[in-house]
């Protein structure tokens, strides 16, 4: 198959035609980085203008004990292994209280698949956080954790999601997608739920009114064709449910994991992944640069390559840093805003559901209407 050229793809975009997988492949491997950026930037700005979202959130990783042994992961520990930890209920609540006091709008809660913590522990934890800090949006538990909790006494994935929703869960993060298609998935995370199951759980969540994100882990053993297939699977589900808010490509951090080329992604890789997502995932409103993995510099430049969301004022990030990410653990709100402004864009703080936040210090309210 002759590869598509950027002018051909530009013509399709101008005509309002949907890009196909051959287009996505050409974009993902384009040498003309500026041309790719121009297409992605135009598309993004038609949709989102000059505004770039960020949010003030806190990550909580309740445990690093995990029965899966994904080969790209430097965070997980076996039960009893040196460095294994599980936070107590009070420790989680103390972190939530701190986040609430500091004016965070969101808790991002993800952790390992612990073999002994029953579903009820999580449900009660969510309920207690929600009761004590009702303004904090709880974005928690990847589809992989939902599947695990179903087997830890929760019954079905649907029941787990229903009970968590009723306890106060606000939405789901997009983690655990890694790379959905086989055979790559089995090579990088053989014990993890299959890609089809990940999509199924997202579909159930969307059906229950829970929104979610979607991620893609790239830069390890996959080919560009695998990435395109991953994007195709996400776009198809989004056509049916509309429940995904943001797409977040995650650059593989090779330093302390036993997988991959050992060197990590290049600047071109990162910008191509984001720009291609903006153009091919036409049914995703938000393309997010996760600066913890990309570094602040690439994240800032990506605001000209289709990105309209910069995550976040992450406090206490553990997962990427265990893998060797060299970015700082947290950026302040001012630093994040300066990063966006220096790029020539307008920073807008959002809540988890992309409503603009009006803030004075640690006090905040949600502006009327959706962004």
């Amino acid at each position, binding site marked *: 198959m002759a590869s598509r050229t950027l002018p051909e793809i530009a013509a399709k975009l101008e005509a309002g035609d949907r890009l196909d997988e051959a287009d996505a492949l050409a974009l993902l491997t384009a*040498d*003309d*980085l*500026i041309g790719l*950026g*121009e297409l992605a*930037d135009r598309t993004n700005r038609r949709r989102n203008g000059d505004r770039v979202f960020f949010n003030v959130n806190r990550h909580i990783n309740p445990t690093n004990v995990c029965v899966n042994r994904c080969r790209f992961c430097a965070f997980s520990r076996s039960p009893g292994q040196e460095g294994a930890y599980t936070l107590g209920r009070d420790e989680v609540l103390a972190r939530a209280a701190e986040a609430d006091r500091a004016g965070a709008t969101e808790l991002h809660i993800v952790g390992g698949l612990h073999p002994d913590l029953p579903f009820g522990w999580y449900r009660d934890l969510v309920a207690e956080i929600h009761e004590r800090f009702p303004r904090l949006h709880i974005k928690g538990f990847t589809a992989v954790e939902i599947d695990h909790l179903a087997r830890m006494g929760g019954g079905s994935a649907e029941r787990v999601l229903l009970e968590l929703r009723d306890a106060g869960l606000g939405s789901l993060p997009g983690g655990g997608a890694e790379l959905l298609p086989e055979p790559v998935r089995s090579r990088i995370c053989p014990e993890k739920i299959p890609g089809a199951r990940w999509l199924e759980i997202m579909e159930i969540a969307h059906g229950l009114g829970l929104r979610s994100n979607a991620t893609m882990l790239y830069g390890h053993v996959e080919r560009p064709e695998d990435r395109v297939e991953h994007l195709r699977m996400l776009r198809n589900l989004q056509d049916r449910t509309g429940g995904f808010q943001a797409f977040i490509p995650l650059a593989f951090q090779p330093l302390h994991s036993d997988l991959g080329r050992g*060197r990590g*992604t*290049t*600047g*071109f*890789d*990162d*910008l191509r992944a984001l720009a291609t997502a903006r153009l091919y995932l036409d049914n995703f409103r938000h393309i997010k640069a996760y600066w913890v993995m990309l*570094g*602040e*510099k*690439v994240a*800032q*430049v990506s*605001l*000209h390559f289709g990105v309209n969301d910069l995550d976040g004022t992450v406090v206490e990030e553990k997962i990427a840093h265990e893998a060797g990410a060299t970015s700082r653990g947290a950026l302040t709100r001012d630093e994040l805003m*300066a*990063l966006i402004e*220096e*790029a*020539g864009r307008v920073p807008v703080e959002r809540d988890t559901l992309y409503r603009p936040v009006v803030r004075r210090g640690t006090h905040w309210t949600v502006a009327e209407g959706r962004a």
Partner: protein
Amino acid sequence: MSRVGRSEALELLREAPLLELGRRADGARQRLHPDGLVTFVVDRNINFTNVCTCQCRFCAFYRRPEDPDGYVLTHDEVLAKIEELVACGGTQVLMQGGLHPDLPLEWFEDLFRKIKARFPQVQNHSLSPAEITHLARISGRTVAETLKRLRDAGLDSVPGGGAEVLVDRVRREISPNKIGWRRWMEVMEEAHHQGMPTTATLMFGATETDEDLVDHLLRIRALQDRTAGFTAFIPWTFQPDRTELGRAEGIRKTGAVRYLRVLALARIVLDNVPNLQASWVTQGDKIAQVALRFGANDMGGTMLEENVVAATGVRFRLDRDRLVTLIRDAGFVPAQRTTTYEVLKVFSP
């Protein structure tokens, strides 16, 4: 094509969208380097002393003469470092240091002669205009005589450091004891006349205005019109951590978007300087790679050793294999070069 003047350059810097700057700079790069080669040199920076009477406010490397952790390398230590460089296929040694009050011109002549005798294949790319002026002063000679003696002892070319911003108001603010912009230019012009090529640098993101940046580029361009002695231009960003200037003025680190804008503008304005270097030392390897589509055609050196930027706490690492991978991945052909940009080895695309 008509030349970009001051007002157009200012407008580009202030108003042009990032990708438009990149598009124009990439076109200019393509016209100057249609072969698609992206080059690098295998080199080592040797900082023979950190003792410095200049004490620039942006510098985290220098020590005062009375400080206990000041050092001066012996000639044997310098030679041992060059031996290591040669063992890993290096071709360039870049020696710079503080303005030491007691190291005489003869110390350098002697060292350079030893280097040429033992390592005739190594290119000696050393001493910035501030150091050459300092050596002229303490030896009671003219800059021309000093350069001639150094050249006769084995100096091949002069790096473009110490330019910072070539506007005296800025220099008074950030490096009050350093030579002014005219003296910097005079040293470079004299080096060019004596047949020694040089590079030119720019350190931005401190206290300069947009106008200052543009004037810096235009001053380099004007000298280059007369001498054609600059081989390359190398912009980088001020690294404020651990510096007096960073602390006193509360200056934030310049971001990657500003870096790419200034880099692209340099490619557009400096139509007579053949090569433009990306600065992985200050930007990291990812942005240095992206810079190849914003006008840069050279990745600088692999730098077996680098101490000056590292003193601010910024430590990016890059080896030859990674460099080759980055260049290929950006769609270019990697090539190892000499100090004067002759291609030594072309890597497969």
